[in-house]
């Protein structure tokens, strides 16, 4: 089973996790920029975080044979802090980088005017940089949040086919699917979705444009939930092709819209990456 985790915060995870993920079949992942447990108070700490998503974290992932890409954005929660809002002005220089495959996570947290501004501005940035967008839907007041999100997407320059709305559940899947957006589901030990409900949603709504992620981070979460969903799909009668579609081909298709996905990485020796050109580079 080959697995592409389309949403996981590896910055918060250990090398044991990378090892277990590789053993479970994870060969690629996308790490979206998001908030941390501790709020940031200045743009500089965002820039160090973004640089880490473009430097250290891909190096760590490569040591375990996993291709690492990221999405870059000012997240909605911290968009409410005027000390952090200037991050928006610096995003263009990050959005041109090779490993950036979407703008994200953007969206709503508390649905404030500052979040409206940040969401609209960053959907425009995605259109300007020919990138798709990863849109987080809020935990509180979720259905209203989804509707407001879809309204802003419709008013933006970005077609719904280039937008992934994430953290969906039974109450939001239908409207999200009708919008034409890609559909993301986060499978958690306690909150969001679980494996059984995920498989039921796949049965009811089909695997088209569905992405399943672990969204593992610094909270209670499990980086192997993608694998668990694949196993349960097989046990419940889905075919291996359908599992591959949900856990590999759909995320490849969505993030491939960026034109920047590079899945060539196998288990190459990390220490030899610095001297590629005339040594087997051709």
């Amino acid at each position, binding site marked *: 089973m080959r697995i592409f985790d389309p949403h996981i915060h590896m910055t918060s995870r250990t090398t044991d996790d990378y090892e277990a993920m590789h053993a479970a079949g994870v060969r690629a992942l996308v790490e979206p920029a998001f908030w941390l447990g501790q709020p940031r108070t200045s743009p500089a700490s965002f820039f160090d975080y973004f640089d880490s998503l473009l430097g250290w974290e891909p190096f760590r992932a490569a040591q375990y044979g996993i291709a690492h890409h990221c999405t870059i954005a000012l997240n909605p929660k911290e968009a409410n802090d005027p000390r952090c809002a200037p991050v928006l002005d610096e995003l263009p220089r990050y959005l041109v*980088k090779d490993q950036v495959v979407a703008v994200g996570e953007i969206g709503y947290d508390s649905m404030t005017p500052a979040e409206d501004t940040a969401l609209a501005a960053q959907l425009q940035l995605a259109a300007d940089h020919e990138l798709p967008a990863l849109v987080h839907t809020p935990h509180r007041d979720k259905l209203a949040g989804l509707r407001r999100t879809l309204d802003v997407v419709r008013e933006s320059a970005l077609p719904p086919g280039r937008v992934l709305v994430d953290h969906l559940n039974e109450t939001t899947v239908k409207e999200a699917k009708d919008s034409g957006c890609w559909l993301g589901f986060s499978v958690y030990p306690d909150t969001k979705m679980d494996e059984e409900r995920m498989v039921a949603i796949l049965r009811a709504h089909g695997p088209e444009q569905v992405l399943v992620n672990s969204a593992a981070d610094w909270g209670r979460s499990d980086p192997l939930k993608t694998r668990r969903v694949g196993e349960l799909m097989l046990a419940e009668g889905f075919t291996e092709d359908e599992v591959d579609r949900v856990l590999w081909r759909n995320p490849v298709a969505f993030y491939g819209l960026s034109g920047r996905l590079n899945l060539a990485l196998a288990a190459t020796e990390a220490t030899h990456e610095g001297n590629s050109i005339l040594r087997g580079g051709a």
Partner: protein
Amino acid sequence: MTRPHTAWDTPAADTEGTTPARTSPAALHDHLRAHLDGAARAWLDQALDEAAAHPGIRGPISVWELRLAEAGRRCGPEHADAARVLILHTARAGTDAVTRVYYQGTAAERRSVLHALPHLVDGPGALPLVEDALRTNDTSVVAAAVGPYAARHLSPHLWRHAVLKCLFTGVPVAEVADLERRAHADAELARMLADYAAERTAAGRPVPEDLYRVLTLCDPTATPPARTAEHGTRGTDGKES
């Protein structure tokens, strides 16, 4: 910044090698012309024309810096280092420009800046970038940092620590430019290597094979530390924490 020119601060004799740092820009260009496909070659030609025509900053970011960022997806990761070095060279990037590009760059872009330094910066003004790279834990960045520019300008103390870091993290010492000249008769480096070998041996761990190679360069007459039965090519796991 200014640093005193001392014995180590001399041009390196070694100009041949395997990295973009040790290959002339003209040879890099020939190599890319021979290996890039049509679309990538056309993209590179245009990127170099732009860099030659508009080397300075226009607006918030110069065109050649945008080209630098996208070189990986345009030329393929295996050709990105060479393409980026060529763009930097064509844009005639000086110390200020390479410093900005380095600090705003991904790991791949930082590597290309380090490779480009010997082609672009004559004096020691870009040494802070090398020192920054030697503080990282990304071995591909460390390997790029110990090229000809470091060989010319890095102080003896920092250069010795760079060699030791290579042994510690598994970067082959073949990456260290001008190793023979700088290691020659370096009694302090020989002492550090012997101590490191003793530490590994005391812990029951293999001594990197490269250590003996460097030790021989420091002092051809030295009695090498007793070798354990097992030999490794690297330290434990490259972990420096």
